[in-house]
């Protein structure tokens, strides 16, 4: 191989992408400690100034606890053993990678921290590889199988709309008498959610109602045609900026929504005969009251010129609070997201209550990942050996193995960048990428190294053209076969389809052309 190889644009592009992938993955195999997943509001830890990580922040940017009371914390086991050994009413020092905190603990169980083993890369692992939150819920009254299906479907939709997609919802029941009580349950397992989000999203029936003059004008779900979630018409409210309330901060949010024609007509009917307010004639005498699960959450003044009009565009406001300005802003946006979710998905068919909320270990843990890694290495080496035996060229064998590595690295980099969870379906997608990649490289090598009948062709372009025709044909066929899976809804199919499509695209557009250049250099 000659150094001229590194002057080729294709090779330079590949190297740039590899570098970007490494930056995105941000690997640190020596990272120990426990990362903070969430700090419960108003808990001891929160009062000491500890903060929940921002949603969607990269795993490697999370605050990591490295020592408590000067004793090193290497993993979740160390952390829990230490916390459980603490006496009541004590003061502890918590050292993180950012600062030291002094926390006055009355009850160690109520510290309010949810932690997990410090991540070693920015690649997020899915529920089956990382574990998550497990919630046991009970419907408030016995429900039929059909109602159970509707309930599970609504919960699934609600969590998905909120942005949680790596989850499993299952129906469960106590064993039938005489072995048990036969009580119905729903088990939900979710990756990457905080326990508070889960509580709010699942234990609320989410019955949203807007009433004016005691007439319900619209409800969450069917009456809402669309809810704006883009920054132009949703977010922190410029009319109602963050204010310092002494001990705490409060920030307002606002977003607009579009009502259905029927709901707009109900609004027109309800306001047709209302007088203007005596205090401020610009507004109607009655306010629009917003109720969530029968509790009033907000009241809005209605402009007088909207009287009797079938208004379809409405602006909803609300607020959030926190210990600091930043906390209050995050809390406000989270409240907004929850309200938007409930408005879009409507209410659950029955009220459910949380029976138990736990952190659950993964189905396939560290041992699985180590084993998979080892087998991956051995498999790659054996493929390299087979290629060497067949082509008798170390260069070909090395180039194929190196290309495999590049594709896996770039795929992980992309996953870290766009923040999608690698789970068992993702691993299957990676295996498809690698397998189809090796196939394509065999095609390129066979076409260029010749060994085919007919006269000797020394035109590289002609040879590559033939190889790339097959590769592109296989690529398009592969991509279209994955497209329906992408839209099939269920997480398993979608994860597989996304990883495969991205993986083979990276292969065809970045690594395959480079591989062709390398083969050309080797065989010249």
């Amino acid at each position, binding site marked *: 191989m000659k150094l001229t190889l590194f002057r080729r644009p294709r090779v330079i592009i590949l190297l740039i992408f590899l570098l970007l992938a490494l930056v995105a993955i941000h690997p640190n195999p020596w990272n120990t400690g426990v990362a903070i997943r969430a700090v419960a509001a108003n808990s001891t830890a929160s009062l000491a100034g500890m903060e929940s990580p921002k949603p969607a922040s990269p795993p490697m940017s999370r605050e990591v606890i490295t020592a408590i009371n000067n004793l090193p914390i290497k993993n979740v086991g160390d952390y829990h053993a230490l916390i459980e050994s603490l006496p009541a009413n004590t003061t502890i020092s918590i050292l993180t990678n950012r600062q030291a905190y002094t926390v006055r603990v009355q009850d160690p*169980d109520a510290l309010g921290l949810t932690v997990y083993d410090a991540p070693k890369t920015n690649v997020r692992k899915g529920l089956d590889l990382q574990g998550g939150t497990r919630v046991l819920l009970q419907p408030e009254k016995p429900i039929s199988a059909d109602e159970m299906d509707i309930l599970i479907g609504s919960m699934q939709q609600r969590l998905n709309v909120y942005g949680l997609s790596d989850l499993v919802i299952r129906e469960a029941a106590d064993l039938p008498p005489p072995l048990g009580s036969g009580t119905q349950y729903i088990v939900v397992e979710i990756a990457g959610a905080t326990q508070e989000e889960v509580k709010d999203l699942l234990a609320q029936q989410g019955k949203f109602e807007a009433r004016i003059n005691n007439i319900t004008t619209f409800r969450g779900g069917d009456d809402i045609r669309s809810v704006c979630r883009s920054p132009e018409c949703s977010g922190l409210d410029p009319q109602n900026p963050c204010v310092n309330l002494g001990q705490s901060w409060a920030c307002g949010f606002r977003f607009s929504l579009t009502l259905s024609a029927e709901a707009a007509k109900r609004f027109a009917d309800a306001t047709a005969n209302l007088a203007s307010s005596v205090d401020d004639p610009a507004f109607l005498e009655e306010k629009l009251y917003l109720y969530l699960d029968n509790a009033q959450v907000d009241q809005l003044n209605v402009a007088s010129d909207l009287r009797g009009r079938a208004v379809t565009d409405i602006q909803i406001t609300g607020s959030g609070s926190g210990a600091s300005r930043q906390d209050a802003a995050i809390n406000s946006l989270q409240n907004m997201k929850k309200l938007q979710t409930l408005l879009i998905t409507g209410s659950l068919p029955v009220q459910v209550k949380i029976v138990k909320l736990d952190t659950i270990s993964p189905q*396939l843990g560290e041992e699985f990942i180590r084993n998979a890694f080892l087998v991956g290495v051995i498999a790659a080496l054996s493929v390299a050996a087979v290629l060497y035996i*067949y082509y008798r060229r170390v260069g070909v064998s090395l180039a194929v193995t190196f290309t495999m590595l590049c594709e896996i690295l770039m795929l992980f980099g992309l996953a870290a960048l766009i923040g999608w969870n690698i789970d068992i379906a993702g691993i299957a997608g990676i*295996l*498809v990428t690698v397998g189809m990649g090796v196939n*394509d490289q*065999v095609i390129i090598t066979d076409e260029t190294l010749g060994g085919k009948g007919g006269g000797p062709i020394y035109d590289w372009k002609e040879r590559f053209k033939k190889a790339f025709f097959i590769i592109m044909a296989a690529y398009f*066929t592969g991509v279209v*076969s994955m497209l329906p899976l992408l839209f099939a809804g269920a997480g*398993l199919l979608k994860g597989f389809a996304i990883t495969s499509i991205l993986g083979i695209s990276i292969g065809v557009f970045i690594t395959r052309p480079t591989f062709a250049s390398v083969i050309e250099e080797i065989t010249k």
Partner: protein
Amino acid sequence: MIGEKVLDWFMAHYKKIFYIPFLVTLVALFLLYQNYTQTGDIFTKDISLKGGLTFTFITDKSPDIAALEAALAPVLAPHELNIRTLRSGAGTGFIVESDLQDPSRETVEGMIAAVEGVLGEKLDESKYSLESVGSSLGESFFQQTFKAMVIAFLFIGIVVFIIFRSLLPSVAVMLSTFSNIVTTMAVADLFGMRIGTAGIAAFLMLIGYSIDTEILLNTRLLKRKDESLRSAFASAFKTGMMMTFTTLTAVAVSLIFIQNEVIRQIMLILFIGLVADLLNTWLQNASLIIWHAEHEEKKAQQPGAAP
């Protein structure tokens, strides 16, 4: 790589050879149908797809998960089990999941006794619970998957038709991919494999792996220039075998070294699928395409045919 005599024999008899993989597919379809009429499913589902029993208990002790598994396995046999840990305010819990559907009183008592044996303490009623759980994917998942697969096959057919401007190659590719999945499923059934979410992912992977060799074969045979059909087939076979052989090597090596049941299942399904792919690509698809190419050539040679 392929003997001249074998090649001659193949080129002479390909029309009959076509029936071998075709019959295999029919037998596989029959086996799947039989399984469906007997059990209500085309393959045996594991706990993640079918649901089963969960046994949850909380303890202050820190028992070894392997020891728990060893104690519980004989009680639950022949059903599979899987243990995970829970952590909440109240301490550490363990959750044993099994695909056992209707436990008897003996089984329940046996499980409690086995856990008590490992813990060395009595489990009082407030510390454990038993629940039956449903499928994690639900009935709608299988309907969605089925619909998605049908559309995927149609898309494959359309793209292949656009590439080769002819109906037969697109039918051949769809048939081969379909045969691969059906045959692999039937063989997995015969082995008594319990298919979980990982298994479903593995079946989907077969689509990608089969397309590669099918497209290679079709391109080399139908887009060839100044080359005989016989030598084009021989060269495609050489490249294609190398492609499948590298993947088979990786899969076989993984099967030897893997300790994890989930990866083993994926690899086993891929192994069966790749062998099925050899059969379906080189005997079924090849026969159809050679027949098609010869037919087209004859048509072109006939006097009066379009120039």
